[in-house]
């Protein structure tokens, strides 16, 4: 198993064994700020090398993916899973959005295997962060309470939420400064990245184990959904990545993004936009099941799927 996944396991096991290990709250915050900025900077730096007109159609296709996934997830949750509209919509929104850490682990997976990928892919991460959340909120209000949507608040929460500002801000700075300008920042933002990711995964393991108790009450359906949905999304992502001409590595990253579910940006936005939804359900699904599934099983599996679809 990869070293970084082992940190997740360490956290998970330590918490299950009732160790008092706990990362300081502000270290968790500092690490997530750092990871978001670093990913944005890296992507922006690479974006500076691209012709914008080449990337634009890909970008639009990727946004469409972010809209489609929650539209698929919602009926499954609502009809099949018999969840109420609010919970179904909130969970759909989490799966429409993406997990930054899962993305980082997939990048590491490629790097460890020397597989190339389009280095501007963090742009897609930024683009996929938002639409899922917006669609989730719309779905929650379909039942006639359209007027209740506070558009101002919602758009604000989505575009000016902490993770969006850091990712997009990093992207813009990286793009404006270019590889030359970022050189002196490399030791901090790039060389330390993987180590910082390990610490963050340790914390995620602790948190996931702490939430694991909620598994029992959330029912079998949700567990099945939290494994099945990522696979469906990954296939969609793999097809789309192939269609828009990404390399096999880039396609794997897009598939992983599609498969991942947000547990940082989405919970914060949903808590305010859909108060009726029980946050325990979406967090159990996204963090306790989907996240470790992607980490340990999903990414290699999607690698195979991409192999079949991309055919290279």
């Amino acid at each position, binding site marked *: 198993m990869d070293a970084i996944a082992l940190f997740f396991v360490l956290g998970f096991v330590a918490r299950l064994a009732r160790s008092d290990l*706990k*990362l300081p*709250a502000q270290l*968790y915050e500092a690490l997530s700020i750092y990871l978001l900025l670093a990913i944005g900077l890296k992507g922006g730096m690479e974006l500076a090398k691209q012709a914008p007109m080449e990337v634009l159609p890909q970008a639009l296709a990727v946004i469409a993916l972010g809209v489609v996934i929650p539209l698929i997830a919602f009926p499954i949750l609502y009809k099949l899973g018999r969840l109420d509209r609010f919970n179904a919509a909130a969970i759909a929104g989490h799966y429409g959005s993406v997990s930054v850490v899962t993305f980082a682990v997939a990048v590491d997976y490629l790097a460890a295997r020397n597989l190339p990928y389009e280095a501007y892919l963090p742009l897609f991460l930024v683009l996929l962060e938002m639409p899922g959340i917006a669609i989730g909120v719309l779905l929650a209000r379909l039942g006639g309470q359209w007027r209740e949507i506070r558009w101002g608040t919602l758009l604000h929460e989505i575009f000016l939420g902490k993770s969006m500002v850091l990712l997009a801000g990093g992207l813009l700075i990286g793009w404006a400064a270019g590889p030359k300008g970022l050189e002196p920042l490399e030791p901090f933002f790039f060389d330390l990245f993987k180590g910082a990711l390990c610490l963050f995964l340790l*914390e995620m393991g*602790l*948190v996931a184990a*702490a939430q694991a108790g909620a598994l029992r009450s959330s029912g079998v359906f949700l567990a099945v959904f939290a494994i099945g949905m990522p696979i469906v999304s990954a296939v969609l992502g793999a097809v789309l990545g192939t269609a828009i001409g990404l390399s096999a590595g880039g396609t794997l990253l897009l598939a992983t993004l599609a498969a991942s579910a947000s547990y*940082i940006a989405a*919970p*914060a936005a949903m*808590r*305010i936009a859909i*108060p*009726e939804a029980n*946050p*325990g359900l979406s*967090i159990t699904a996204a963090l306790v099941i989907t996240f470790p599934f992607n980490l340990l099983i999903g990414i290699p599996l999607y690698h195979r799927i991409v192999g079949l679809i991309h055919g290279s």
Partner: protein
Amino acid sequence: MPNTHKCKLVVLIAEKALEDKLAQDVMRLGAHGYTVADVRGRGSHGDRNGTWDADRSIRMEILCDVKTAVTITTHVEKAYFLHYAMVAFVADVGVLRPQKFSG
């Protein structure tokens, strides 16, 4: 105490996600200020031990007159009690400059 004047202390313990909203609410409803601390805890919504974003709680204290205290508690009861992890209580205290907290 001779040098103090009657005042209400409203305390709200709630999910951190509500901090900005509550701050706006209490000022709009007539409070002249508030004080916030980061806390963790347990209640009917289970363990909220503050290890990560979704698990954090805050404790907001508002010194105000009775009328504002009733307005604030009535408002939060209606707006948040159903869907959010939240507790509210009120105490009688004595303050030093009463005009600072009332009117």
